[in-house]
């Protein structure tokens, strides 16, 4: 009897504890979530990644090899629904916006806990913004997307579960942009000079490096770091304190964790997927015929949606701050960049590299964005003759008859083009571009290099030309860190932060205007002008955009809504496995 009473007592306590926590209930089977079902616990999602993470510090990370992992560890005040692309409550359960649009008050969920069990309160939110994001010591691009009229919002605590942001001007995408990772004050506050004048200014940049003990990295995301073995594996495990539940009250996520297998390249990743060692894979065009032929036999499916281009962009960039002064002079000439744009044979790339599963990209705004304005963007179509004419105009001519155009001093005009080694799609695009350049006498030395080394070169302005990609979203302001003159990823001309070109000044203005209006049509006009200016000046030469395609083993559930927006990791807390002991088509435990 005592035992029964004790048990009842425990149950009551647990029950009360659960009531005290304001979980977010995800209504599977209803509305936006109609195609998702209540799952069962267990198993690991195993995905491939090509490179080691460079950091576990989400706000410092600038490369997907890091952010694919760190984004699973953290949560924000708001989040974007992976199905609808709409902003929804997350750590904040609700908010109020003042009539003038300048004050936004967030009401936080109560009773939530960090992944180490400590309570989550308004202090964490205030610390994250005032102590980390708005702290100039911290090298984060996140500040770029929160800026309006050159000013950041202010953030203050109202009470333990209420925070208030005050803006310098109305900020249309504020609710979308404010959803960045909230950091734990109890772990990091002492490292911020805002709160501790004796702190090292570098402390918040270097904290949570890849050698950090996993238990030190604390977040509000669905998973927490369990193990990192360089060149082999990153293992995330379920955050036992996660704050979302399914309609039956089961705490998410369903999976025990996620394993990121560091595979080194696309071929190895593809083979591991075919061999049933990975659960999901985003195939390259060249993979599709092989995968489609094997899908039924091996128990996976291949999804292709030709109507949905991906959100990101792929581009060729010339370094306008190039250490080679002679090259820099030409890279800064818009005629040179337009000539190069005329040498990107998009149709050939679509036909030969993407097997028809891609569309031309002309704009810095994602094709799926409602702000995409194809009618105004300048299109420098493939035209070697036009390219040759432009090159002649700027004095790049073949002086010695060897077939290569020369600099005025008679030396051959040539540049190195880098992309990340192992990305065979990018390597093929580079090769097509280099071949077309050769046709008009431009010598391109193509040299694929390691991804992390490439990112270091790009961000350090130590490159000549690069072909790479950027992630994207439906909101143009998410690209503020790229397209604003002082943006952290303005990698083609960091120097113009001090002295922007006139069109770039206008782009900076347009970015302000675009966020200050709540009128969609007005915002559209600003972003259309931005797209026109940017495309005319071709600081980035966009190539093509592949359509959505994904391969996944059928054992993985709640995948019906995979899309260009979220792919697999955007659904990580909802995914579950029919047989939790299977990875791919293999039983592993």
């Amino acid at each position, binding site marked *: 009897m005592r035992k029964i009473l004790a048990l009842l007592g425990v149950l009551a306590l647990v029950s009360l504890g659960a009531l005290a926590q304001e979980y977010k209930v995800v209504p599977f089977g209803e509305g936006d979530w109609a195609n998702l079902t209540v799952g069962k616990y267990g198993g690991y999602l195993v995905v491939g990644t090509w490179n080691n993470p460079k950091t576990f510090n989400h706000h410092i990370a600038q490369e997907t090899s890091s952010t694919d992992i760190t984004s699973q560890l953290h949560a924000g005040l708001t989040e974007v629904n992976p199905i609808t692309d709409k902003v929804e409550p997350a750590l904040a359960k609700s908010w109020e916006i003042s009539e003038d649009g300048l004050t936004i008050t967030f009401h936080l969920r109560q009773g939530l806990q960090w992944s180490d069990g400590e309570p989550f309160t308004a202090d964490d939110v205030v610390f994250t913004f005032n102590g980390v994001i708005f702290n100039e010591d911290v090298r984060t691009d996140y500040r770029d997307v929160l800026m309006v009229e050159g000013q950041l919002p202010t953030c203050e605590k109202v009470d333990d579960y209420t925070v208030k942001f005050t803006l310098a001007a109305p900020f249309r995408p504020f609710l979308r942009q404010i959803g960045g990772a909230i950091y734990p004050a109890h772990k990091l506050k002492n490292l911020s000079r805002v709160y501790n004048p004796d702190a090292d200014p570098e402390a918040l940049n270097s904290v949570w490096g890849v050698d950090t003990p996993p238990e030190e990295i604390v977040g509000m995301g669905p998973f927490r770091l369990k193990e990192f073995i360089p060149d082999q594996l990153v293992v995330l495990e379920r955050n036992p304190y996660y704050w979302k539940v399914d309609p039956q009250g089961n705490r998410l996520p369903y999976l025990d964790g996620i394993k990121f297998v560091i595979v080194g390249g696309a071929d*190895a990743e593809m*083979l591991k997927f075919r061999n049933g*060692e990975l659960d999901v894979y985003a195939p390259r065009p*060249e993979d599709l015929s*092989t995968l489609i032929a094997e*899908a039924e*036999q091996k128990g996976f499916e291949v999804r292709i949606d030709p109507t949905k281009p991906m959100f990101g962009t792929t581009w060729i960039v010339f370094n306008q701050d190039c250490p080679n002064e002679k090259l820099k002079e030409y890279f800064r000439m818009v005629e040179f960049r337009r000539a190069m744009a005329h040498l990107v044979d998009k149709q050939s790339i679509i036909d030969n590299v993407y097997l028809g599963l891609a569309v031309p990209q002309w704009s810095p705004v994602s094709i799926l964005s409602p702000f995409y304005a194809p009618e105004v963007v300048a299109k420098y179509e493939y035209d070697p003759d036009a390219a040759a004419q432009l090159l002649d105009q700027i004095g790049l001519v073949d002086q010695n008859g060897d077939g290569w155009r020369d600099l005025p001093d008679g030396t051959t005009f040539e540049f190195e083009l880098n992309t990340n080694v192992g990305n065979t799609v990018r390597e093929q695009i580079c090769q097509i571009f280099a071949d077309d350049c050769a046709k008009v006498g431009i010598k391109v030395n193509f040299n694929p290099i390691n991804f992390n080394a490439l990112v270091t070169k790009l961000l350090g302005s130590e490159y000549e030309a690069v072909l790479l990609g950027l992630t994207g979203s439906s909101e143009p302001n998410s690209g503020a860190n790229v397209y604003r003159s002082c943006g952290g990823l303005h990698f083609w001309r960091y120097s113009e932060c001090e002295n922007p070109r006139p069109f770039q000044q206008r782009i900076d203005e347009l970015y302000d205007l675009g966020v200050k209006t709540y009128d969609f049509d007005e915002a559209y006009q600003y972003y259309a002008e931005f797209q026109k200016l940017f495309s005319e000046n071709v600081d980035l030469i966009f190539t093509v955009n592949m359509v959505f395609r994904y391969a996944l083993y059928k054992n993985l559930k709640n995948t019906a809504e995979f899309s260009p927006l979220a792919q697999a990791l955007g659904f990580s807390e909802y995914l579950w496995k029919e047989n939790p002991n299977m990875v791919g088509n*293999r039983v592993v435990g």
Partner: protein
Amino acid sequence: MRKALGVLLVLLLAAPAFATMSAARLEEIATKDVIPEIQMAAGLALVDYYAANKTETELKELATGGATEAIRTAATLALSRVWIGKDLEYRDLIELVNDPGQPAALRAAAVDALLEFLIEKKDSTLETIYTLGRTAEMRYAGAKAYFFKNRSKFKLADLEAICLDDTNPDGYRKAAAELLAGNYLFPPTTAKSQGELEDQALNGKNEYLRYAASQALFTLVVQSDLSEVDLLKKVTSFYLNEAFTEEYKDAYIRALAARWAAGL
């Protein structure tokens, strides 16, 4: 009369299996059914089960000494599954696959695990392997890795030409045929219809072209609305019927196996 008897026996063995298909029942069919094609379908349906439930030692024993070809094939494929990702050493795999003294079933089972190493090799190394490998499995593994690395360089016509060229090594042609099979299904603009694939699996100019068609045909058959019963009837009709090629039969046998495996 013999054919009719075969049909009857198959129905006796297999029909009850519809209601309560189990691994034990599949093993019984794979071992005792009088029709080899039905045996093979049952064996292939057991691959996942074997991979999940048999030890490596058991699989090795079954792969080399199983009662029927169907059981040996099932165990070989299951062993292949088990060896993938098992952190086997490159040297051990090479020594196994390239040693004519090792059982062919074990050499075959090691090919996929070996591939994970071979795709890191230079094309020239792979060319040497697929040309001079000491065993058919080694030559096939080298070719498979070569085509995997270079698959975007070969168009459908190139692959058909490789399959038809008698001077090419055997493994090279087989690996080319497997890549060709995918080209018969994608992209949609050039994909072959089920009828075209059936025709090629029956009447293709050589076994490699028939094999390519068979691989692609299997996908379409599995995706079709043919029921387990339809497929069983079809496979049963292969018994002692010389109108069908091995490649054509294989597509339907594997499709039946897929249906049975799904019911496990």
